[in-house]
C-alpha cells in the first residue's frame, strides 16, 4: 500500500513536471518577465506592513510564505 502510494506520488510529480515543461518561454522571449514590475513582490516593505496588519487583525496567516507571526499581536 505504502509502495503504491509512493509510486503514485512519483508518477504524479513526473506528470506535473512534464506538464510544466510544455509551458513557459524561451530565454529570448523573457523581455516582459524581466521587468521589475513583474516580480511577485515588488515592494517588500509594503508587503511586510500588510502581513503585519492582517496578522494582527485577522484569524488567518501564511500563504505567501510561512504562517508564523513573530509578534504578540495575535
Amino acid at each position: 500500500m505504502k509502495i503504491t502510494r509512493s509510486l503514485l506520488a512519483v508518477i504524479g510529480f513526473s506528470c506535473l513536471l512534464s506538464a510544466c515543461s510544455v509551458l513557459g518561454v524561451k530565454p529570448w522571449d523573457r523581455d516582459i518577465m524581466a521587468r521589475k514590475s513583474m516580480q511577485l513582490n515588488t515592494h517588500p516593505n509594503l508587503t511586510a506592513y500588510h502581513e503585519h496588519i492582517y496578522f494582527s487583525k485577522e484569524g488567518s496567516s501564511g500563504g505567501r510564505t510561512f504562517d508564523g507571526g513573530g509578534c504578540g499581536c495575535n
Partner: protein
Amino acid sequence: MQLRKRKMGRVSRALGLVTANLFVATNGYAQAVPAPQPPATHLGNSSGSVTDDTQSDLGTITTDGSVLFYQEKGGRVKAVEPVARLKFTGENGDTFSLKATYDSLTGATPNGATPWKETQTFTTPTTPPGHEEAVTGASGNSTIVIVPGTGARVAQYQIAPHQLPLDAGFRDRRYALNLSYSHLFNPNTRITFGLNGSRERDYRSYSANTSLSQDFNDHNTTLTVGVNYEYDQSRPHFGTPTPLTEMNGLIKGPGENKHVFSVIAGVTQVMTRFWLLQLNYTIGWNNGYQNDPYKIISVVDPITGAPQQYLYENRPRSRTRQSVYLGNKIAIGPTVADLSFRYYHDSWKVDSITAEIAERVPISSWFYVEPDFRYYHQTAASFFNYYLLAGQPLPSYASADYRLGRFTAKTIGLKLGFKVSRDGEFYVLGEDYKQTGASTVPGAPGDLANENLFAGVHARSVMVGFSYTFR
C-alpha cells in the same frame, strides 16, 4: 557568438535568481527571506520607456526605507512603524539582506466584554507605587483603588453605557531584526537561510528558516521547499492569568511559551510571455500558549443579559494551520495586474478566503499609479462566543476576541510610484481597511439583543518609502 553565450549565461543566472526566491520572499514581518531578484537583461526595452525597469541587481546594494502610519477609528490603536532594509547582491548571485523594524503602538483595544446599557467597571492589576511605567494592558484611563478589607492596590476603568468595552491602556514598542543569506549553488539551485528576532515589553519571538529552490525547464519552473521554526515567549506585564477564572487585580502566574514549526512547498511557473504563476501550500503546527492574556469574556444573565462576571479567555494549546495560495502576475500592454487568492483552514475551525487584485498603470516613464482591492472573509473559531450564559457548565475553551469571530474585511487603496532616477523610487500608498460582521446574535438574552456586539476594526493607513540601488 562569445558575446551571445556570455549574455545567455547571465540571463540564465538572473532568471534562476528570479524564480528561486519568488515565493518565500513576501512575509517580511516575521521571516526575513530575500526579495525576488530582477533578471539581468535589457531585452526589449528602450531607455525612457514606461516599462524600462529591467536593470540587473548583480553586484549592487539596495536600500529601502519606509514608514507606516496606521490609525483605527474610534480612538483605537495607532501605530507608527519605520522599517530599514539593506540588501547586498554579489556578482555571483548570492544575497545578504538585513531588515530592522521599530513599531510604536498606542490606543485602545477591545477587551472582549460585551457592551451593556449600564456603566461597566473592569479591574486589573497595577504596578507597585513608584513603578508607574507605561505597559501593555489597562492603565491609560484607569484609577488606582485600594480594595477594602484586603488593602490590595488595583486599577479600575469604567465603560459608559452602550459603549464597546475598550482597554485604553494599550501601549507598546516592538523592535525586530531579520537577517537572510542566500547562496546560488549553480544556475538552477539556491539555498536560503534566515534568522529573525523581535522584542516587545511582554513578548519575544525568535525564528530560523531555510529553503531550497530548484529550477527546471529552462528556468520556467521552480520548485521550492522550506521549513521554519519559531519560538515565542509570552511575558504579560502582570503575569499570565489562569484561563476561565474571574478577572481581578491580583498579579498572575509565570510566563508561557509557544513553538511553531512550519513547512512550505511551492511551484513558480512562467506560463506565457505575459503570465507568471505561483502556487504554494503551507502547513504550520502551533503548540503552547496561544491565549491573549488581556482578553476576557462576559458571563451574562440568561434572562436579562446583564453581565455577571468577566472571565479570562482560554484557547486550545494546539493549532494546525494550512493554506493554499495562488499568485499571478499578468502583463497587459504596459500595465501589470497582480491577482492572488488564498484558501485557509485551521484546526480551530477558522476557514477563510482572500482575494486581492492590484493593477499597476504607468502614466509616464517616471510615474505610475496602482489601485488595489482586497476581499477577506473568515468563519468563527469553534470556541468563539460573544458571551457565556451564567448557570451553564463552563466550556473547555472560550474566547470573545473579534479576530476569531465571523467577519468580512475589505481593503481599498492607491499606490503612487515616482522614479526619481534610474535606480531610485519614491512610493506612497494610502489604504482604507474595514471589517464588517453581524452586530447582533440571534437569541441574545434580554437587553443584550439591543447592543452592537461586533468589535471589528475600521482603519486607515499611509505608507511612504524610498528605495535606491547603488551600482
